[in-house]
């Protein structure tokens, strides 16, 4: 539901990954190499094949 690990198969930007996963309107954070960040502040960042990205979905309660 909230936290999912993804292995990158081929080089792509964060924006391309987000579009591919249909997450552009979903509130998330990403973790890469121990660093956590908001994807929209790093759309141009290149992910390399073999990178492990953790998608952290923000969940609201109540």
């Amino acid at each position: 539901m909230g936290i999912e690990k993804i292995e990158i198969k081929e080089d792509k930007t964060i924006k391309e990954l987000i579009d591919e996963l249909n997450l552009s309107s979903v509130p998330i954070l990403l973790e890469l190499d121990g660093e956590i960040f908001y994807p929209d502040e790093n759309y141009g960042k290149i992910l390399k094949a073999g990178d492990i990205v953790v998608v952290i979905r923000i969940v609201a309660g109540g």
Partner: protein
Amino acid sequence: MRVRRLNKILLYDEGMAQALNIEGIAEYLRKKLGKVEVEVRGNPFALYPLQDKISDYARRIASIKIQDATRRMSLGPEPLYGEIEYEKRRILGKTRAFGVLYDGLELQRLFFELIPEEERSLEFVHIFFTNRLFATWEESDKRYHARTSVYGIPSVISTTGLVEAPARPREYYLLKQQYEMLGKDLLELKDRFKGIFIDYEDERLTEVVNGYAMQAVFYSLVGDPFCQDKGCRLYNAHWQEELVLAQLGSEYEFCPRHAKLLEDGEWALRR
């Protein structure tokens, strides 16, 4: 179920309700998660005492107020001077937030920046307690919905949200209309429903928040803060009666599945 490792739990109080005992919550978490360190950090803005930084945060908080619950907020015009000054006083603890609704995701984003970079990790559970009321946009019905909490980095729990977000019994709203039409005292109505829902400065607030803090812990542990079991403290209550049952009235604290996860303690990084 994949269980992540936890290193430390950090509690922040960004303007909390007077009835909330944050040290009590820390003690509860220590009891439940004995192998994980729990630290009370206090006001997160105190980490940035510089006046210009406080002014910047105040301006940004003023810009995430929701003016109309049926229109999705966009970061538009610069907030007014008075609005920024109000938020500055609010940050410095010189006034309390009432009657203002904030965008919960934007508030969380701002709080994210207050976390030291070296602690922005899933191994750290950062929990911000606030008395600001916040809401998140629902695309399905195109309106904002008040929330008790948002779970992520950090998790944010609103004491005002615990009062306002879960709906009160339908009968309460019907009677409230009648009271208002007849000009009767609404305090009398509240007395009629005393104990049925959580109210401001409710003496049960700390006990209720213990359960919401555990939702934040389970979010970090397994990626899901919630449980389908209505008697489990991880139940995502949308009605006050559900909240009171899950947090105060159930015969057990956690369902067997979540209780076992806690007992196993395999997730603790520090031993």
